[in-house]
Protein backbone atom coordinates (compact mmCIF):
# COMPACT_ATOMS: atom_id res chain seq x y z
CA UNK A 1 0.00 0.00 0.00
CA UNK A 2 1.14 3.55 -0.70
CA UNK A 3 -0.07 6.52 1.29
CA UNK A 4 -0.21 9.86 -0.46
CA UNK A 5 -0.87 12.98 1.65
CA UNK A 6 -1.92 16.43 0.50
CA UNK A 7 -2.09 19.09 3.18
CA UNK A 8 -3.80 22.40 2.50
CA UNK A 9 -4.03 24.58 5.63
CA UNK A 10 -5.99 22.43 8.09
CA UNK A 11 -7.39 20.19 5.34
CA UNK A 12 -5.73 16.87 4.71
CA UNK A 13 -6.42 14.50 1.82
CA UNK A 14 -5.04 10.98 2.20
CA UNK A 15 -5.08 8.85 -0.94
CA UNK A 16 -4.42 5.14 -0.49
CA UNK A 17 -3.29 2.78 -3.22
CA UNK A 18 -3.31 -1.00 -2.88
CA UNK A 19 -4.74 -2.87 0.08
CA UNK A 20 -5.67 -1.67 3.51
CA UNK A 21 -5.27 -4.99 5.27
CA UNK A 22 -3.64 -6.72 8.22
CA UNK A 23 -0.15 -6.13 6.87
CA UNK A 24 -0.55 -2.50 5.83
CA UNK A 25 -3.02 -1.00 8.35
CA UNK A 26 -0.35 -0.40 11.02
CA UNK A 27 1.39 1.87 8.51
CA UNK A 28 -1.72 4.03 8.10
CA UNK A 29 -2.32 4.07 11.84
CA UNK A 30 1.23 5.36 12.46
CA UNK A 31 0.73 7.98 9.79
CA UNK A 32 -2.54 9.18 11.32
CA UNK A 33 -1.07 9.36 14.81
CA UNK A 34 1.35 12.03 13.66
CA UNK A 35 -0.69 13.74 10.93
CA UNK A 36 -4.08 14.57 12.42
CA UNK A 37 -3.00 17.24 14.89
CA UNK A 38 -4.73 20.49 14.02
CA UNK A 39 -6.60 18.99 11.07
CA UNK A 40 -10.25 20.03 10.83
CA UNK A 41 -11.06 18.45 7.52
CA UNK A 42 -9.92 14.94 6.64
CA UNK A 43 -10.64 13.23 3.32
CA UNK A 44 -9.75 9.66 2.41
CA UNK A 45 -9.51 9.16 -1.32
CA UNK A 46 -10.05 5.45 -1.98
CA UNK A 47 -10.07 5.53 -5.76
CA UNK A 48 -7.04 3.25 -5.94
CA UNK A 49 -7.82 1.15 -2.89
CA UNK A 50 -8.35 -2.46 -3.98
CA UNK A 51 -9.74 -3.86 -0.80
CA UNK A 52 -10.17 -3.31 2.89
CA UNK A 53 -10.22 -5.90 5.64
CA UNK A 54 -11.36 -5.56 9.25
CA UNK A 55 -7.90 -4.36 10.23
CA UNK A 56 -8.44 -1.42 7.89
CA UNK A 57 -11.89 -0.70 9.29
CA UNK A 58 -10.33 -0.48 12.73
CA UNK A 59 -8.04 2.33 11.58
CA UNK A 60 -10.90 4.17 9.87
CA UNK A 61 -12.92 3.92 13.08
CA UNK A 62 -9.99 5.39 14.98
CA UNK A 63 -9.74 8.26 12.50
CA UNK A 64 -13.50 8.91 12.67
CA UNK A 65 -13.38 9.08 16.46
CA UNK A 66 -10.51 11.58 16.38
CA UNK A 67 -12.17 13.71 13.72
CA UNK A 68 -15.52 13.74 15.53
CA UNK A 69 -13.73 15.73 18.24
CA UNK A 70 -11.89 18.19 16.01
CA UNK A 71 -13.67 18.52 12.68
CA UNK A 72 -15.05 16.32 9.97
CA UNK A 73 -14.02 13.34 7.89
CA UNK A 74 -15.20 11.90 4.63
CA UNK A 75 -14.42 9.04 2.27
CA UNK A 76 -14.49 9.59 -1.49
CA UNK A 77 -14.23 7.40 -4.61
CA UNK A 78 -14.56 4.08 -2.80
CA UNK A 79 -14.80 1.12 -5.19
CA UNK A 80 -17.50 -1.52 -5.10
CA UNK A 81 -15.62 -4.16 -3.04
CA UNK A 82 -14.78 -1.50 -0.45
CA UNK A 83 -18.36 -0.16 -0.40
CA UNK A 84 -19.65 -3.70 0.09
CA UNK A 85 -17.52 -4.03 3.21
CA UNK A 86 -18.78 -0.68 4.55
CA UNK A 87 -22.28 -1.89 3.86
CA UNK A 88 -22.25 -5.23 5.67
CA UNK A 89 -20.39 -3.84 8.67
CA UNK A 90 -22.67 -0.85 9.18
CA UNK A 91 -19.80 1.52 8.38
CA UNK A 92 -22.12 3.19 5.86
CA UNK A 93 -23.92 4.68 8.89
CA UNK A 94 -20.75 5.79 10.64
CA UNK A 95 -18.73 7.25 7.81
CA UNK A 96 -19.57 10.08 5.45
CA UNK A 97 -19.22 8.47 2.05
CA UNK A 98 -19.37 10.53 -1.11
Amino acid sequence: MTIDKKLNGTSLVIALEGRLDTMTSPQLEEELKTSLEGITDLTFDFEKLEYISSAGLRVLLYAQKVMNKQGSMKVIHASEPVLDVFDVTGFVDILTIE
Partner: protein
Amino acid sequence: MTSLTVKAHISNLSMVQAALEEWLDTIGCPMKISLQLQMAVEELFVNVASYAYGEGEGDLTLTFDYEEELSLVRISFRDQGMPFNPAECLEKEEESTRLQVEDRGVGGLGILMVYKTADQVHYSYQDGWNILTLEKKL
Protein backbone atom coordinates in the same frame (compact mmCIF):
# COMPACT_ATOMS: atom_id res chain seq x y z
CA MET B 1 -7.24 -29.80 -5.20
CA THR B 2 -4.44 -27.72 -3.81
CA SER B 3 -3.36 -27.64 -0.22
CA LEU B 4 -1.04 -25.42 1.71
CA THR B 5 0.17 -26.09 5.24
CA VAL B 6 1.88 -23.32 7.17
CA LYS B 7 2.61 -22.34 10.75
CA ALA B 8 -0.43 -20.38 11.86
CA HIS B 9 1.62 -17.23 12.18
CA ILE B 10 0.85 -13.82 10.80
CA SER B 11 4.18 -13.75 8.95
CA ASN B 12 2.76 -16.39 6.60
CA LEU B 13 -0.26 -14.34 5.54
CA SER B 14 1.47 -12.78 2.52
CA MET B 15 2.45 -16.19 1.21
CA VAL B 16 -1.06 -17.56 1.62
CA GLN B 17 -2.53 -14.52 -0.11
CA ALA B 18 -0.06 -14.72 -3.00
CA ALA B 19 -0.82 -18.41 -3.53
CA LEU B 20 -4.58 -17.83 -3.31
CA GLU B 21 -4.50 -14.89 -5.70
CA GLU B 22 -2.56 -16.87 -8.32
CA TRP B 23 -4.78 -19.89 -7.88
CA LEU B 24 -7.91 -17.80 -8.36
CA ASP B 25 -6.35 -16.27 -11.49
CA THR B 26 -5.57 -19.73 -12.80
CA ILE B 27 -9.17 -20.90 -12.51
CA GLY B 28 -10.37 -17.69 -14.16
CA CYS B 29 -12.00 -16.10 -11.13
CA PRO B 30 -13.22 -12.54 -11.83
CA MET B 31 -11.31 -9.78 -10.03
CA LYS B 32 -14.21 -8.71 -7.83
CA ILE B 33 -14.83 -12.16 -6.42
CA SER B 34 -11.11 -12.75 -6.09
CA LEU B 35 -10.76 -9.68 -3.87
CA GLN B 36 -13.75 -10.77 -1.79
CA LEU B 37 -12.28 -14.21 -1.25
CA GLN B 38 -8.87 -12.79 -0.40
CA MET B 39 -10.50 -10.61 2.20
CA ALA B 40 -12.42 -13.54 3.70
CA VAL B 41 -9.30 -15.71 3.79
CA GLU B 42 -7.35 -12.90 5.44
CA GLU B 43 -9.93 -12.59 8.21
CA LEU B 44 -9.97 -16.30 8.94
CA PHE B 45 -6.21 -16.71 8.65
CA VAL B 46 -5.60 -13.86 11.06
CA ASN B 47 -8.11 -15.36 13.50
CA VAL B 48 -6.42 -18.76 13.52
CA ALA B 49 -3.01 -17.10 13.84
CA SER B 50 -4.23 -14.89 16.68
CA TYR B 51 -6.47 -17.13 18.74
CA ALA B 52 -6.55 -20.81 17.80
CA TYR B 53 -3.41 -21.94 19.59
CA GLY B 54 -3.42 -19.37 22.42
CA GLU B 55 0.19 -18.70 23.39
CA GLY B 56 1.32 -21.89 21.65
CA GLU B 57 2.14 -22.72 18.07
CA GLY B 58 0.43 -24.90 15.52
CA ASP B 59 -0.26 -25.45 11.87
CA LEU B 60 -3.02 -24.35 9.57
CA THR B 61 -3.90 -26.22 6.41
CA LEU B 62 -5.77 -24.45 3.64
CA THR B 63 -7.26 -26.29 0.71
CA PHE B 64 -8.40 -24.68 -2.52
CA ASP B 65 -10.82 -26.54 -4.68
CA TYR B 66 -12.73 -25.64 -7.83
CA GLU B 67 -15.72 -27.58 -9.05
CA GLU B 68 -15.85 -26.58 -12.63
CA GLU B 69 -19.30 -27.96 -13.49
CA LEU B 70 -20.82 -25.85 -10.71
CA SER B 71 -18.40 -22.86 -11.05
CA LEU B 72 -17.94 -23.33 -7.34
CA VAL B 73 -14.88 -22.37 -5.32
CA ARG B 74 -14.41 -24.16 -2.03
CA ILE B 75 -11.77 -23.03 0.44
CA SER B 76 -11.26 -24.85 3.69
CA PHE B 77 -9.29 -24.21 6.86
CA ARG B 78 -8.12 -26.96 9.19
CA ASP B 79 -6.38 -26.37 12.50
CA GLN B 80 -5.92 -28.26 15.73
CA GLY B 81 -6.46 -25.27 18.00
CA MET B 82 -9.24 -24.76 20.51
CA PRO B 83 -12.69 -25.71 19.22
CA PHE B 84 -14.22 -22.53 17.83
CA ASN B 85 -17.43 -22.25 15.86
CA PRO B 86 -17.51 -18.76 14.32
CA ALA B 87 -21.28 -18.94 13.82
CA GLU B 88 -21.59 -18.35 17.56
CA CYS B 89 -20.11 -14.85 17.18
CA LEU B 90 -22.37 -13.87 14.33
CA GLU B 91 -25.31 -12.50 16.25
CA LYS B 92 -23.14 -10.32 18.44
CA GLU B 93 -21.31 -8.97 15.42
CA GLU B 94 -24.58 -8.26 13.61
CA GLU B 95 -25.70 -6.24 16.62
CA SER B 96 -22.47 -4.29 16.74
CA THR B 97 -23.07 -3.04 13.18
CA ARG B 98 -25.97 -1.01 14.56
CA LEU B 99 -23.88 0.79 17.20
CA GLN B 100 -22.93 4.45 16.98
CA VAL B 101 -19.31 5.30 16.38
CA GLU B 102 -18.49 6.13 20.02
CA ASP B 103 -19.92 2.82 21.24
CA ARG B 104 -17.93 0.71 18.83
CA GLY B 105 -14.91 -1.12 20.14
CA VAL B 106 -11.98 -2.33 18.12
CA GLY B 107 -12.54 -5.50 16.20
CA GLY B 108 -15.35 -7.95 16.15
CA LEU B 109 -16.34 -7.63 12.51
CA GLY B 110 -14.15 -10.13 10.69
CA ILE B 111 -16.41 -13.13 11.07
CA LEU B 112 -19.44 -11.15 9.97
CA MET B 113 -17.55 -10.06 6.85
CA VAL B 114 -16.71 -13.68 6.08
CA TYR B 115 -20.32 -14.83 6.38
CA LYS B 116 -21.59 -11.95 4.27
CA THR B 117 -19.00 -12.58 1.57
CA ALA B 118 -19.27 -16.33 1.17
CA ASP B 119 -22.34 -18.05 -0.25
CA GLN B 120 -21.98 -20.81 2.34
CA VAL B 121 -19.91 -21.28 5.47
CA HIS B 122 -19.73 -24.67 7.08
CA TYR B 123 -18.05 -25.51 10.39
CA SER B 124 -17.38 -28.81 12.08
CA TYR B 125 -15.11 -30.15 14.81
CA GLN B 126 -13.77 -33.63 14.13
CA ASP B 127 -11.10 -35.62 15.98
CA GLY B 128 -9.46 -32.52 17.36
CA TRP B 129 -9.68 -30.55 14.12
CA ASN B 130 -11.56 -27.34 13.44
CA ILE B 131 -12.76 -27.58 9.84
CA LEU B 132 -14.21 -24.45 8.33
CA THR B 133 -15.29 -24.39 4.69
CA LEU B 134 -16.30 -21.44 2.55
CA GLU B 135 -18.12 -21.81 -0.72
CA LYS B 136 -18.57 -19.17 -3.37
CA LYS B 137 -20.03 -19.36 -6.85
CA LEU B 138 -18.05 -17.56 -9.53
